[in-house]
């Protein structure tokens, strides 16, 4: 593998890792703070991708579609939290698994009724359609760099939100000791709703910006959900920092595995997970 090829694979793996982080961050926050295991998290990714497709064909602009879609997804998240999830925070994990599995069925079928079962493509905006030439015949698409850039910005925003703002302080207090936070006058129900909507928002934005390169198809949420589980397990449940490092690690192993060891590439990530479990059964950064 020469340098240019190596650089391309490295950029691809970082981009994939960052995308996984956007999903895993929401999953790990929702678990860490509310104690809910959410199998339907992949559906929010799918929702984002379909929103990007249908809104961008409507508006003719992907940027506008992403902005409107993010707002719609957050409203959807708030409604879902209010209607269902808030009644399940103190329930058994088994109940949560079943609830969210039922929701996957409902979301998939509604998707089929509203948007159909066809595979769709989303066009890359003209401004980002260019490629950066690396050698005579190798180049790197600008859009992928743009994706990574968006993910990095959102990751920094998430970090600032949680560790530097008053809201973030309340979120951490609620995660640390729910009853105590409530006794101090923090509206914990509101905090939960905000965190849930944040998770839905992150997952759907990930789906939206991934839509032009991954295309939009039924059941696109399940595969990405499993990868997120692997990321969360490696990183340690509840740890956003762990999710970031694990997501980048999974991105590296998966991308370079496909190039260097194609015959067992599909298993490598799981082997990584098994190794981490042997070494640290509670993940690398258990909170």
């Amino acid at each position, binding site marked *: 593998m020469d340098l240019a090829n190596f650089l391309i694979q490295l950029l691809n793996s970082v981009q994939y890792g960052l995308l996984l982080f956007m999903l895993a961050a929401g999953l790990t926050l929702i678990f860490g703070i509310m104690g809910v295991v959410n199998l339907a998290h992949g559906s929010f990714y799918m929702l984002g991708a379909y929103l990007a497709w249908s809104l961008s064909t409507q508006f003719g602009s992907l940027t506008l579609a992403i902005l409107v879609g993010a707002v719609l997804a957050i409203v959807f998240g708030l409604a879902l939290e209010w209607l269902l999830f808030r009644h399940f925070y103190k329930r058994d994990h088994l109940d949560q698994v*079943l609830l969210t*599995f039922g929701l996957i069925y409902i979301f998939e*079928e509604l998707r089929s009724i509203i948007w159909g079962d066809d595979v769709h493509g989303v066009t890359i905006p003209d401004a980002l359609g260019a490629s950066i030439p690396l050698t005579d015949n190798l180049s790197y698409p600008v859009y992928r760099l743009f994706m990574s850039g968006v993910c990095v910005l959102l990751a920094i925003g998430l970090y600032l939100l949680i560790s530097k703002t008053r809201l973030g302080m309340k979120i951490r207090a609620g995660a640390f000791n729910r009853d105590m936070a409530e006794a101090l006058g923090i509206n914990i129900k509101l905090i939960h709703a905000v965190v849930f909507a944040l998770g839905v928002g992150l997952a759907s934005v990930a789906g939206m910006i991934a839509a032009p390169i991954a295309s939009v198809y039924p059941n696109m949420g399940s595969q990405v959900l499993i990868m997120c589980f692997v990321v969360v397990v490696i990183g340690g449940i509840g740890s956003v920092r762990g999710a970031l490092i694990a997501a980048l690690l999974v991105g590296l192993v998966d991308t370079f595995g496909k190039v260097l060891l194609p015959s067992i590439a599909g298993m490598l990530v799981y082997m990584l997970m098994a190794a981490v479990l042997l070494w640290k*059964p509670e993940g690398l950064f258990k909170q």
Partner: protein
Amino acid sequence: MSTTTANLGVLPRGVQVALALGLVALAAFPFAGTDFYTQMVTRMMIMAIFAMSLDLLQGVTGLVSLGHAAYFGLAGYALAFLTPQGEAVSLWWTLPLAVMASGLAALVIGFFVVRTHGIYFIMVTMAFAQMVFYLFFDNKVLGGSDGLYINFKPGTALFGWVPFDLDNKLTLYYFTLALLLGVYAFLRCLLWSPFGRALAGIRVNEHRMRAMGYGVFGYKLTAFTLAGSVAGLAGYLWGAQTGYINPELMGFHMSAHVIMMVILGGMGNFAGAIVGAFAFEYLLYVFKDLPQIGAVNLGKHWQLWMGLFIVLLVTFAPRGILGLANKFMKRKATGHE
């Protein structure tokens, strides 16, 4: 799990009578039903064996596995690989071998997963099952996404003597029924054995069991391996009955379905798992068979009805049919006082 008492009691007299009646009904069913329904009930009994194997983990030991379908599918694949293109293969060595293959996979995966607890266990069992799923899905040699055909049902010849013929749908029905009874009896005995009591103890309080000197890791790994093997038995039967095996059988929808079956009937006593498997499979059949009303084909959207059913059930009756009956009976009892 939320219940803190171990599930070791003898089943109530009413339930025992109901189970006996159910057995009589199952034994007599092929004489009343058509071929189609005989095959459907055979499939239900296979799923009941599968559900009981999960109940050993979920209801008895308190381990919620979201990847149990992997062991079910593996044994089916084992049968598919062992059956040659042009002839049948003997039941007597392929059945144990397929069950052992599932058991071995459960032993290896279990070695990693039983170290984890609660939510980790759910996620990790699911992730490993998906690993197995993609292994078969991605490799053309292993059948790929299309799956494999099993052209011949396993033969039963013993030194030239053929005791029964599984090609006959009725024989397969009674063969499955016999195995269902055998597995039920075996698991009930297990529940009453010191081993079963240790598992129940782990469910109620794992730390206390460890403090009392039980090797919790070994007990959980044994339970996981055993559950995987019994799931393999069900998977082998599935392969033999349908003659076709594909990666979907190992997917996480299948794993979630079997969790639903155990929940639906009530956990921890194996009888509930059987009832749940029959109820769930029947519901699936009803939802898929819904009529066309106007321009809307209700049956085509079975996932929507199943999803709504699951969400409503888990919201309003999280302890299944038996739990709902218990609640109702308690309310009636207090009303009389």
